[in-house]
C-alpha cells in the first residue's frame, strides 16, 4: 500500500469536522424553526389545478405552472449529455461491437424485459396525468431498457455521435421549446398553453420528453462506458 492515496491530512480532517459540526448546529436550529403550520403554495396549486389540464398536482406544477423550470431542467440534461459526449468523444479509443460476447441468458433476459419496460414506460407516462408518474419516470424506465440492451450487447457505441442520435437526444427539448415559443404566437406569453389545449400540449410535450430522456440516459451510459476490451486488456482475464 505504499502507493495509496494519502488520507487527507489531520489538519484538514479536523477543520472539516469543525466546519461540519458548525453546520450541523446551524442546520438543526434552522430546520427546527420552520413553522409547522405553513401552507406554502399548496392551496394556490389546488385552486388552479382545474386550469392546468392535468389532474395530478405534481405534474401540473412540473409541466404547466412551473414548466419553465422543467424546460431548463431538460436543457441541463441535454447539456450534460453533450458534455459526456464531448468528454468521451475525444477518447482516443473507439468501441468495437461486442455482440458475439453476449451471454445467452443475459440476452434472453434483455429480450424478455425490454418490451415490458417499454410498456411500463408508456404506462407511467399515461398515469402521470392523474397519479404519480410522468415524463421523467417514464423516460428513466425507457432509458433503463436501453441500458439493459446495451449491456446485453445490443448497442453499437459507434453511433453515439451520429446525427440520428443527436436528433433523438434533443427532440424532446426542441418540441418543448417549440411549443413554449409557439404559444406566444397564439397570443399568449412564453409557455402559456391555451386552456382548451393544455391537456393535449402537456401530453405531446411529455411524450417527446419521455423519448428524449430515454435516449439521453442510454447515451449517457453508452458514451461514457469503457469498452470491454479495455477492461479486459487491463486485467488480462475476465469474461
Amino acid at each position, binding site marked *: 500500500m505504499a502507493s495509496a*492515496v494519502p488520507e487527507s491530512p489531520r489538519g484538514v480532517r479536523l477543520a472539516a469536522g469543525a466546519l461540519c459540526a458548525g453546520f450541523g448546529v446551524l442546520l438543526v436550529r434552522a430546520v427546527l424553526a420552520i413553522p409547522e403550520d405553513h401552507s406554502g403554495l399548496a392551496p394556490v396549486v389546488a385552486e388552479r389545478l382545474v386550469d392546468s389540464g392535468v389532474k395530478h398536482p405534481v405534474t401540473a406544477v412540473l409541466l404547466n405552472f412551473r414548466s419553465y423550470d422543467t424546460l431548463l431542467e431538460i436543457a441541463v440534461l441535454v447539456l450534460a449529455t453533450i458534455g459526456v459526449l464531448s468528454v468521451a468523444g475525444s477518447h482516443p479509443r473507439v468501441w468495437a461491437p461486442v455482440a458475439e460476447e453476449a451471454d445467452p441468458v443475459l440476452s434472453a433476459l434483455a429480450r424478455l424485459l425490454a418490451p415490458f419496460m417499454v410498456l*411500463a414506460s408508456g404506462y*407511467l407516462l399515461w*398515469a402521470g396525468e392523474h397519479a404519480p*408518474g410522468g415524463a421523467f419516470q417514464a423516460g428513466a424506465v425507457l432509458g*433503463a431498457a436501453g*441500458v439493459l440492451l446495451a449491456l446485453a450487447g445490443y448497442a453499437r457505441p459507434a453511433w453515439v455521435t451520429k446525427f440520428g442520435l443527436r436528433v433523438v437526444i434533443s427532440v424532446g427539448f426542441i418540441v418543448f421549446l417549440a411549443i413554449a415559443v409557439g404559444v406566444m404566437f397564439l397570443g399568449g406569453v412564453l409557455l402559456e398553453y391555451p386552456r382548451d389545449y393544455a391537456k393535449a400540449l402537456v401530453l405531446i410535450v411529455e411524450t417527446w420528453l419521455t423519448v428524449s430522456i430515454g435516449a439521453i440516459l442510454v447515451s449517457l451510459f453508452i458514451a461514457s462506458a469503457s469498452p*470491454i476490451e479495455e*477492461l479486459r486488456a487491463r486485467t488480462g482475464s475476465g*469474461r
Partner: protein
Amino acid sequence: MNAVLMGFAVVLLLTIIVGLTRVERGPSPADRMLAAQLFGTSGVATLLILAQALETPALRDVALVFALLAAMATVAFVKRAWHPGPSGEEEPPCQ
C-alpha cells in the same frame, strides 16, 4: 390493520439491514452484489405492503419499476464492474 402491516414492513426492513452485513463482509464482490439483489426483492415486498398499509396504489407502480430494474445493477456489475484479475483478487482499495 395498518399497524400489523407496518410490522411486516419493519420485519422486511430488518431483513435488509441483516443483508447489509453481507455487503459489509464480502468477501468477493459477487457476495456484495448478491446481497444487493436481495434488497431489491425485499424492497418490492415492502412497497407492496406499504401500498396496502398507506392506501397508496401508486406504490405498486414503484414496486413494478423496482421489479423491472431489479436485475439492472447485477447485470451492470457482471458486465462492467467485475472482471477480476488472474488470482481472483478482491476489488482494489480506493485509498
